[in-house]
């Protein structure tokens, strides 16, 4: 059985979704526990797979024994498996929150029971995006994600027809761009397999086609990366429960970024391909446009809007590493990817503590003096904000450190100046939040003190951010370094010299 671990990891949530759906007709309580079981089962299988993958390297698995490019291949790398564990863990937290939300918002039990299969389908499709090595399979699973996402929106908000419609339509338009990009590549190379595409592009030396496909394949993620920015989706933010916004922003968008990383550096990274000047300028502008989200976040008086802006703005750090394209930059991007998932989800869950029901207002001022009343919750908020700012020992610090090093290596002064400016702004925002939490006189409208079980997910997410920082050496050496393009494997890994230990 152990030789089939990659497909078992993928099949567990999909099979579970149907079983849980069936069980939901008879017992909602049992269906709930079955959902947890099928979310934790892949984690157990991942535990089994980790030693093998760490010892032998990436695991290529051909479905039905059909070798690629004719058959569909799954490729499980140490990094993608770690990312999958984050996805599964955060999905379990989101499902746990669905239960709390259901009790509070008096959701019909049948709705809550339907949430389990939908979460399992969504999680399974996200895992497929991480491991599929076939352009068309990526498109199919992306469409499934948007369909299931729209279903989840309706499941938690019966009035959310319009939000579901917009989510599905915009998402499908993005997925169509992804399909168009892969069809462009297919027309020129005759293959849809990601590794084979790179080889064929190298043989044909069709640089202009790689550029055109690259533009389409990047634009495909535009909707997902901007979701749920208040500039475009304020109504969704107000009407959807916070755990769902957090899951879409923290997990869906970050998995999309990982797929973009695979496309840019393992499909279109044709040796000898030089980026034209106009594209380089466009890439810089794109990164600065995302980073500008930090300025918008700093201006917000509402904590939910602030969290939503931060969710999108942080993607600027990851994209910055992609544009730098050197080893330190890419290592920083992948480190950021891991640390942003729990931090973003945590911020949305914290917004849920301020006003648990959709439509409630979540003014920042309600955090005033919370540090003195509820120290653990305040500490979690400080950890999330410090990770976004880049304070050791959070995971976000190491991501930003590698990004700085990458910008220095490339002597990209624009990015260095931009990063410096953003970090100064984030320092001011984090200082303001910390002062508000611990020093500010108590607000008359402080958040309701919830039972520890309602706050447990926040503690887990803050713990994940800290663990990533504390074990950054192992994360970098065992997970991130093998995930980088082969050209970087021989160059030394970035160091953090002033912490007294070298990574390599």
């Amino acid at each position, binding site marked *: 059985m152990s030789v089939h671990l990659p497909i078992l990891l993928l099949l567990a949530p999909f099979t579970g979704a149907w079983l849980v759906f069936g069980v939901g007709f008879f017992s909602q309580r049992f269906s709930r526990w079955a959902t947890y079981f099928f979310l934790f089962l892949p984690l157990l299988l991942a535990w089994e797979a980790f030693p093998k993958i760490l010892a032998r390297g990436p695991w290529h698995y051909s479905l039905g024994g059909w070798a690629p490019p004719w058959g569909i291949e799954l490729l499980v790398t140490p990094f993608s498996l770690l990312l999958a564990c984050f996805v599964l863990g955060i999905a379990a937290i989101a499902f746990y929150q669905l239960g709390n939300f259901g009790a509070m918002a008096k959701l019909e039990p049948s709705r809550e029971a339907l949430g389990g299969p939908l979460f399992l389908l969504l999680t399974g499709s996200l895992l497929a995006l991480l491991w599929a090595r076939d352009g*068309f399979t990526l498109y*199919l699973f992306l*469409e499934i994600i*948007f*369909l299931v996402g*729209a279903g989840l929106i*309706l499941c938690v908000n019966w*009035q959310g*027809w*319009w939000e*579901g*419609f917009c989510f*599905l*339509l*915009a998402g*499908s*338009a993005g997925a*169509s761009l992804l*399909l*168009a990009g892969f*069809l462009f590549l*297919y*027309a020129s190379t005759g293959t849809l397999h990601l590794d084979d595409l790179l080889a064929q592009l190298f043989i044909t030396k069709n640089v202009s086609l790689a550029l055109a496909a690259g533009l389409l394949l990047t634009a495909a993620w535009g909707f997902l990366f901007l979701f749920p920015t208040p500039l475009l989706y304020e109504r969704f933010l107000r009407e959807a429960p916070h755990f769902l916004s957090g899951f879409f922003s923290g997990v869906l968008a970050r998995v999309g970024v990982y797929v973009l990383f695979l496309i840019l550096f393992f499909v279109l990274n044709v040796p000898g391909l030089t980026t034209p000047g106009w594209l380089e300028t466009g890439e810089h502008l794109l990164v600065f446009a995302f980073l500008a989200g930090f300025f918008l976040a700093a201006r917000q008086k509402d904590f939910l809007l602030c969290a939503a802006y931060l969710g999108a703005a942080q993607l600027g750090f990851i994209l910055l590493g992609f544009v730098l394209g050197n080893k330190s930059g890419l290592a920083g991007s992948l480190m950021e990817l891991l640390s942003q998932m729990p931090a973003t989800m945590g911020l949305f869950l914290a917004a849920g503590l301020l006003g648990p029901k959709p439509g409630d207002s979540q003014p920042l001022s309600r955090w005033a003096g919370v540090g003195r009343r509820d120290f653990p919750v305040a500490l979690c908020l400080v950890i999330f904000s410090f990770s976004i700012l880049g304070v050791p020992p959070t995971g976000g610090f190491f991501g930003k450190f590698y990004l700085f090093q990458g910008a220095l290596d490339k002597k990209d002064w624009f990015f260095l100046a931009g990063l410096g400016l953003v970090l100064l702004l984030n320092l001011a925002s984090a200082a303001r939040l910390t002062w508000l939490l611990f020093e500010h006189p108590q607000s008359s409208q402080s958040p309701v003190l919830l039972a520890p079980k309602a706050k447990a997910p926040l503690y887990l997410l803050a713990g994940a951010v800290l663990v990533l920082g504390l074990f950054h050496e192992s994360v970098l050496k065992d997970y991130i370094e093998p995930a980088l393009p082969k050209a970087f494997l021989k160059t030394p890994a970035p160091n953090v010299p002033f912490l007294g230990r070298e990574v390599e």
Partner: protein
Amino acid sequence: MNNFLTVFALLLCVAGFHGIFFYGDPAKKIAAWVFLQAGLLLFLFQAVPPGIPLRPVLAVEILGVTLAVAGSLALLAHKKGRLYGTRKAGWAAKRQSP
């Protein structure tokens, strides 16, 4: 590759993409998205030479996805219309609401 059909496919895609963002009526938005998918399907027929088994497989899958998504979108738009009375009344109600 037939140049006329390729240009026609691209035109369908561009028209569809434009419609998704610029039409206000949900039904027109759905139609625009279907146009975009039809353009891609036509482009697929241009890109993959006949006789290759991948061609019908991809075509059926794209058609299936298009039908499933368009059906879901139509259901959502219909339910939204029922929720707010008629579709137009719903739009008007939403515009007036704060």
